[in-house]
Each structure stands twice: as structure tokens, then as C-alpha cells.
């Protein structure tokens, strides 16, 4: 009996909260409609994905590799990102660069986004500013694991 009463009380509380939010938000929206400036704004639902919020300037999204002026990757294959990566998702294979001024370049650079936790340590570790996470691509869902393994071609785009 007491238990059933408890349910009933909680139900009423829930209805009260919903009603309160509706009335409060409606109140501010109505004031706004009549051009009355208030400090507090009414809550708005963003219709994602049709409508997108601006990302913060220091957000972290899909990685990209930077290029030199001549189009080669800026990466020098020092593997410091591989070293710092806590989820072991970066694999680099370095190759001798034919240019005598450049020691090595990455012949493969793979980021396994299945494992990546988007901590951004790779960006911080990079001594050449060759990797950045500022593409603003955050909708990365795929239907297969393989589609989430990004190689040089995708990362350099």
C-alpha cells in the first residue's frame, strides 16, 4: 500500500517538473516574442544533424596530417605520437627519404579510430605540428571496423 503511494507521489513530482520547465521556458519565449529583454533565455532544442552547434575553438575531432609547401607530409616519422598514444592506435612505418636534407618520411601512417579515444596527446607530442585534430568532423560512425582505419590518403585530405 505504502509502495503504491510512493509510485503515485513520484509520478506527480515528474509531472510537476515537466510542467514547470514548460511554463518557465514558454514564459521567457513569450517575453522574447514581445521584445522584452531578459537575462535568462528560454531553452532551445537543436535539430541535430540537420542543425549543428558551433564547435569550440579548442575542440578535438578527426585527425588530419599537415603538408609541407611542396605537398609532402610534414610528418618526420619520429613516432612520438605512437609513443604517447594511450590506446596504441597509431602505426607508422618510416622510410628513407631520397632528399638528402630530409631523413625519413612516413610510408604508412595508420590511425585506427576503433581504438582512438580522442585524447589529443598525439597533437601535443608532435614536434613538427604535423598532426592536428581540428577538422570539425565528429560524426565518424561507420558500419564496419575497416572503414574506421584511416591511412595516409584519408588523413592527408
Amino acid at each position, binding site marked *: 500500500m505504502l509502495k503504491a503511494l510512493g509510485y503515485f507521489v513520484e509520478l506527480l513530482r515528474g509531472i510537476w517538473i515537466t510542467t514547470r520547465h514548460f511554463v518557465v521556458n514558454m514564459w521567457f519565449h513569450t517575453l522574447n516574442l514581445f521584445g522584452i529583454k531578459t537575462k535568462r533565455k528560454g531553452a532551445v532544442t537543436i535539430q541535430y544533424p540537420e542543425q549543428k552547434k558551433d564547435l569550440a575553438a579548442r575542440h578535438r575531432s578527426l585527425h588530419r596530417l599537415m603538408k609541407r609547401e611542396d605537398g609532402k607530409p610534414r610528418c618526420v616519422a*619520429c613516432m612520438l605520437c605512437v609513443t604517447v598514444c594511450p590506446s*596504441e592506435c597509431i*602505426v607508422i612505418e618510416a622510410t628513407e627519404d631520397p632528399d638528402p636534407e630530409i631523413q625519413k618520411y612516413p610510408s604508412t601512417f595508420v590511425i585506427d579510430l576503433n581504438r582512438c579515444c580522442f585524447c589529443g596527446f598525439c597533437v601535443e607530442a608532435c614536434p613538427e605540428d604535423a598532426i592536428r585534430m581540428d577538422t570539425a568532423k565528429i560524426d565518424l560512425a561507420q558500419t564496419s571496423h575497416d572503414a574506421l582505419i584511416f591511412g595516409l590518403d584519408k588523413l592527408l585530405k
Partner: protein
Amino acid sequence: MAKIFLDGKPVEVAEGTTVFKAAQQAGIAIPHFCYHPAFVPEGSCRLCLVEIEGSPKLELSCSTVVREGMKVSTQSPTVREARRGVLEFILAEHPLDCPICDKAGECKLQDYYQDYGLTESVFREFKEKREKKVRIGDKLILDRERCVLCTRCVRFLAEITKTHELGLFERGIHAEIGGYENEPVRNGYSGNLVDLCPVGAITDTDFRFKTRPWFLTKGESICPLCSRGCNIYIDYHPGFPRVPGSAKVYRIRPRTNDAVNGPWICDHGRYGFIDLQQKNRCQTLVWNKGERTAEWSWDKVLITIGERVKALRENGKTNRISLILTTWLTNEELFLIKKIFKDGLGVRNVFFADPAPGPEDGFLLRSERTPNRRGAREMGFDLKAPDLNALVPDTDILFIFGPHFAGISHDGAWKPALEKIPVKILVTSHLNELASTADFVLPAAFLAEKNGTLTNADGRVQKIAAIARACFDIRPESQILLDLAREIRLDDSYFGALSAPEAVHHELVKEIPFFGALP
């Protein structure tokens, strides 16, 4: 004996010892680039300076001999100041490209900068531009910017190999290491220059850029490419989760053992080992019959082989089993083979197929190109080469260990001869034409993937350890042999107790005390 005081601590050392060696014996590390225990002290890096009481200037510890009652200070403020000065001069010309330098992580210059430097450079001049990729040997690349001119490489080629390929040219800021008439460094020990170089100036193309040293796990082992049994470190990387087959051995380095190889190993072993470890590996268990090749489970294959052997045993015809062994096998495995086949089943046809002997070089490399011929001899095996005429008519089941039987060929006569033998079982770590002829192919572990001991040509019994993880469906021979012994119900109580190679070694020493002298 002379009594000296190192940083106030009294130390007794033999007469004629240098201050550097005395400090080393007392456990005091003195920084150095040019000093190496195998060479005569050169005193060119000026980093091992110490303060000696009564001496007006700082002295070089690597070339100063101790005197009775000498008071040496290795860490006084003057000494530290002097070392910092020396480091600053070296770093004034050093490119500081540590992030792309293969030595970073195990570089002496990095370590000493941590210990003594940590200062901003006062030099405002541009650094000298030098060549960064000079090929000085078949596998060696010299970076002249990184070089600190310790001349260890020059002295190695002058004192150890006596081939004198490199020298120090020009003077002052223009001084550089180079070859005479650009002759390449071409001797069987050129790989040691990479280990000798205290900075990343000399790199070899085998390891260059492949990985970074801090990813590698180091394991102690024995070089299997000749019967010298050089002590080595195997640097192994366990691989990345999403890249199949990325687990591999990246390099081989000498492990100092003055009784066997000193601080050196030959190029034959250094570069040959990695090829052996990675190329042509036998990866899957196979049962061949006509056109059909089915992959079986280990249990099924061992039961089938066990049944064939048991059938012969019930008819009392176990002498119709023959063995072709290799001395790539460890002492423990040879002992198990002896126990199971020679003592247990009474097998008499035992042959050894080994890689062909090569030329000896008079230093480390020996002509026997397998690690354990001495061990097999001490075990009581007669190391005779396979005799096809004796083998074929008397054999119903042939066990072949190792891939070398095909190599000794008899001009390919082994192939039709093997066809006449009803059951052929190949236990091998490497694939070759033998695999297509054999009825069963059992993938076995290579020497870096199993535990055991090897006996070198001088009778020294040395341990090898499983360092690299076996990435394929492979098993060590000792396990295959023990499983087989269990399958054919051969003295269960004896073989049941021998689960690990260590237990086998214990049993081996009990029977043949020669193998007890494990250093």
C-alpha cells in the same frame, strides 16, 4: 695493490690500473665517449676529467694510472664545471635532431646532457652544415653532423679488424670521419661500428628508421649461426594490436662475454639471424595426401602419428623408424629424442642434416654453421650425414627435424628416395621443398622462441630463452616430443615429469654431467 681514495672512499686496486677502471670497480660511473675497454685509451673526448689532489690541472681518468695514496674526486664542482664545458662544445656542433635520430633513447650524449648540461647554449653562431647520409659500408650510413669524433670506429677498424677502412681527416672544426679513397667498410664485423658509436652517427640500413629503441624489449640469447655461440641481445617488439605480423625481432646486438665473443659479434650472425627469424617460416600444421591438403589440429595430428608409431611398436618393428636430425635442436630436445627414439624405441638409423660448413674468418665466425654440434656429440650421437641407400629400404616412418635435409641434396636424389618411404613427418621452423614431400608438417619454434641450452664448440653450455612471442601456430620441439611420448605411452611416469625444458635439463645433467656446467 695500490690504495687510492675515490671521492673520499678508500679503494684497493691492482698496480697499473687506470683511475677510470678503478672507479668502475668501485661502482662510480665516469662519463666517457672515446674510452672503450677493448681499445687503448685515446683521451680525445675530454669528458672523463677528474680532479687529483696535488695535480695542478684536471687529469684524464681513462689514461692516468693510479698511484699509492692518490686522492681522486670524480664529482667535485670543478670537475662538473669542466664536463659541462666539454659537453657545451660538443653540443655547439651537434644537430640536436633527437626526434628523428635512431640512437635517441640509448644515446650517451643525451644521458650526459641530463647529468651535466641542462644549460642553454651561449653560442649564437650557426651550426656547421655537414653531410647527413654518407654511405661508408654496404649497410652503414654515417651522419657527420651527429658525430662527436670519439674515433671509436677508427680504432675498432685499426685494432680489432685491422682493416683500417676509416680515418679522421682534416683538423679543428673541419675534422670528420671518412674512408680512404672512399673505400667502403667491408669486413665481416662492420655491424659493430653501430654499437660502438656513442651517438647516432653510424646507423645500419637494417635497423635505420624501422622503430624507436624504447619500443623494444631486450632478451638474452645465443647466436645460432655458427658454433662459436656468441652471446647476444635480441631486441624484440611485441607488435601493434591491429597490424597482424608486426611482432618481430628488430635487431641483434652483442652481449659482452669475454670467455666467448668479447663485446663483438660478426655480421653473418647479426644480419643473418633476423632473416632466419622472419623469412620462410613454417606457420601452419599441414597433413598432405595426394591433392588434398587439410589443416588439422595439433591433437589430431599427434594422435595419428602416435597411432602409426604404436602400430610398429606392437609388431616389434620400431627399428624401421628413422631420424634425420639437425643441430639447430637444443641440448634438451636432443636428449628427449635420445630418450624416446634411441633408448625407448631402439631406433638405429639416426642421421644429421646440417647447413653446409662455411669459411672460417679466424676471429669469431667458425666453419660449423649450427649452434649445437658439440652438444649432439657429447650426447653420444654419431653426426653422420644422411645415407639414402641405408635409409630408404629400412624405413617405414621417417622423422625429419629441421629444413636442412633438402639443402644437402645429393643433387635432388632425396626427393624420389623419400617418395618410397610410407610415412614422412617433418618438424621444422622453416619451409622449403621438403614440406611438399612430407606427409605431416609440424611447425616448430625457432631459437628465439623457445627455452633451452646450446653447447658451443668449446663445450660451453649456454642458455637461450623464449624472447619473441611465437606469432604462428607453432610449438617448441620439446613439447612436440613430449606429447608424442605421451601418445605412444612410453614410460608415462618418466616423461610425465618432464614438462618444462628446465626439468629436461635437470634430467640431462643427472645422466650426462658434462651439461651441468651452466655458466
